[in-house]
């Protein structure tokens, strides 16, 4: 499908020195956005909601993919960052009456800044200390969301979160808002696509493969690591800013530590280090329960088992599997 383009074809075409050269990933993004624009026809409000939720989760997973898949850092606070974004947006739009677009930007900036503050001391020590610090952070945020009832509504949550409008078009309906989500997701994915193809992306990949060597070539590993983590966190903030108006209600439960674990599993399932991996990962995480209605709550076991098997057989996730399949089909020496 698309994965080979991210690594194989795109890499090879770079020699043409066309900065805006179009590659398979971008084509897939454009096509995907077009399909999703029309997809909800005849799906009903619920089906549309699930599609939108999938995209929103994909944004959070995309951010984590940058942190984990490209920079090789374990962040256990992606759901907490998403919570920060969701609560910031909900409070700013419903209590202060701020425009959603401003709230969206503030959510992203806030989570970016918090990411920097959090990452700096942790990454000073050793990469895996980021996991420890984010674990603590994740639980602390959850506690604040739950305890500060005057601000966050505590365990009872916040309701009546308004949906944005575009120009003068109200986006209150499920379909209208879904299309809005499609556009925002596309913009965020395209921005990430650009970044990954820029020298930054090369530095991120160097960081993951061999940080010591990268540093000896002048790559400011601390700066890039911090950036990857902070941008990844900002994507969670953006996802939160969409999540709040999508559900129109938030409480602390979807932003707990176990949700952060779940997001990590989605990254790995989809294929960490592949630009389109997050969409596949979030599809497995969000839509799988719908497909597995028959087995009821067993879906969690099914999902976790899929991730385990993938990790054993193909650590590059579903994207890696597709890449291998593609290589087989085209007869190229594929796989790693």
């Amino acid at each position, binding site marked *: 499908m698309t994965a080979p383009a991210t690594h194989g074809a795109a890499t090879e075409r770079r020699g043409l020195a066309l900065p805006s050269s179009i590659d398979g990933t971008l084509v897939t993004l454009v096509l995907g956005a077009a399909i999703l624009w029309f997809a909800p026809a005849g799906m009903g409000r*619920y089906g549309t909601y699930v599609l939108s939720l999938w995209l929103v989760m994909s944004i959070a997973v995309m951010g984590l993919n940058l942190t984990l898949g490209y920079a090789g850092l374990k962040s256990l606070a992606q759901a907490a960052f998403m919570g920060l974004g969701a609560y910031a947006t909900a409070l700013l739009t419903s209590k202060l009456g701020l425009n959603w677009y401003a709230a969206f930007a503030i959510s992203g900036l806030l989570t970016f800044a918090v990411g920097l503050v959090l990452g700096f001391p942790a990454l000073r020590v050793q990469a895996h200390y980021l996991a420890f610090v984010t674990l603590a952070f994740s639980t602390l945020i959850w506690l604040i969301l739950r305890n500060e009832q005057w601000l966050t509504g505590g*365990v009872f*949550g916040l*309701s009546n979160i308004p949906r944005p409008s575009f120009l003068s078009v109200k986006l209150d309906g499920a379909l209208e808002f879904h299309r809005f989500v499609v556009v925002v997701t596309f913009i965020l994915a395209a921005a990430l696509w650009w970044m990954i193809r820029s020298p930054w992306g090369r530095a991120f990949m160097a960081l993951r493969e061999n940080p010591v060597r990268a540093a000896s070539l002048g790559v400011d590993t601390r700066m890039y690591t911090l950036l990857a983590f902070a941008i990844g966190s900002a994507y969670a903030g953006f996802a939160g800013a969409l999540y709040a108006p999508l*559900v129109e209600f938030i409480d602390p*439960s979807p932003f707990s530590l176990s949700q952060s674990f779940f997001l990590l599993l989605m990254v790995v399932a989809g294929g960490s280090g592949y630009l389109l991996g997050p969409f596949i990962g979030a599809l497995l995480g969000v839509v799988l*329960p719908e497909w597995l209605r*028959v087995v*009821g709550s067993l879906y969690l076991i099914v999902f976790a088992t899929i991730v385990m098997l993938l990790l054993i057989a193909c650590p590059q996730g579903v994207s890696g599997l597709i890449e291998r399949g593609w290589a087989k089909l085209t007869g190229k020496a594929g796989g790693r």
Partner: protein
Amino acid sequence: MKMQWILATALSAALGLPALAQDKVKLVDVVELSGAGATAGTNWKNGIDLAVADINAKGGILGKQIEITHYDTQTNPGNTRAAVQRAIDEGTYAVLGPVFSGPIGASMQIAQRAEIAQFVGGEAANLTMQGNKYLFRTSLSQTAAMPKIAAYLKNTVKAGSVAVVWVNNDFGKGGRDAILPELEKAGIKVAVDVATEQGQADFAADAIKVKNSNADAIFVYLNEEESARFLRAAKQQGVTKPMVGETTLLGSKVIELAGEAANGVKGHVGLSIDAPIPAFQEFGKKFQAKYNYVSDHNGLKGYMAVYMIKWATEKQKTFDKKGVADTLRGATIKPSDEPGIMIETTIEQNGDLDRESFLAEVKDGKQVITATLPKIKP
């Protein structure tokens, strides 16, 4: 539209379900089957299944068999909201569930907008204060129960000060917020206010804190296993003051888990399979036989919810969705009219319930009803 039809047919064919929608009435239960609410949700679901089996065996509602579907919310408010939407999209006759108050708060506007009755297991006070005409409780609300507790503490236990131990989730926080003003009204001092975590394993420090407060009594408002852990820890720390609770603390699960430490616990019970009403006890036996464990009050709530729908439908003699809510508001259902309701229940205009309740005590590992409290508005 046609597309949907084909999909639905294909889906039901694939699942091996008979697609004879005409002589069936569709009910969707949206409930916590995984996540933090799994215990309560599973009881609720089993209670519903039991009721549906009973009703279908006796010919259904107005001759139609009930087709029940359960959707797992994962105890996630967002999912709950979506699942309620889905149930309505799929044409459910009424919405059953959920049980936890947070998810109820998140999803109730959806059913309200669609003018479909929603039967919930939540007890939080604020649910019925929002003017939602389509929301119905299946048990007493905390606002109804807490004055009874306060009166009990004042008149029977004769406590001048009380330690309040609560679990910091929507259930516990709601209960705590409801009891504090009642205690104040009754002139009872709060000696210490102890918040605990859902899923907390260790209660030693909390028990010491309660002991050191020298309160005359301890009001315990926790979920099942946390109740049991607290009772054990309190016993171990030598807490001797009376433990007073609401329904959960006197439930069979807590008694089973806490063992000896549960003896002497007293309080108010809304619904209980141990209540001195034959229908409750019979339900308890049926439930035990089918699911091989003892039902808690959530099982009873789920069971009665289905019978509330049945009663309303038979009363209005038609499957009018909006009519269910209209018929139920202000109605009083008597067991003589509908045995499945088990106990005379009045449904108030805001969806609250009024019925008899009980004072109970745990003696020798058994819940013993010591008094029956009349309805608030008899």
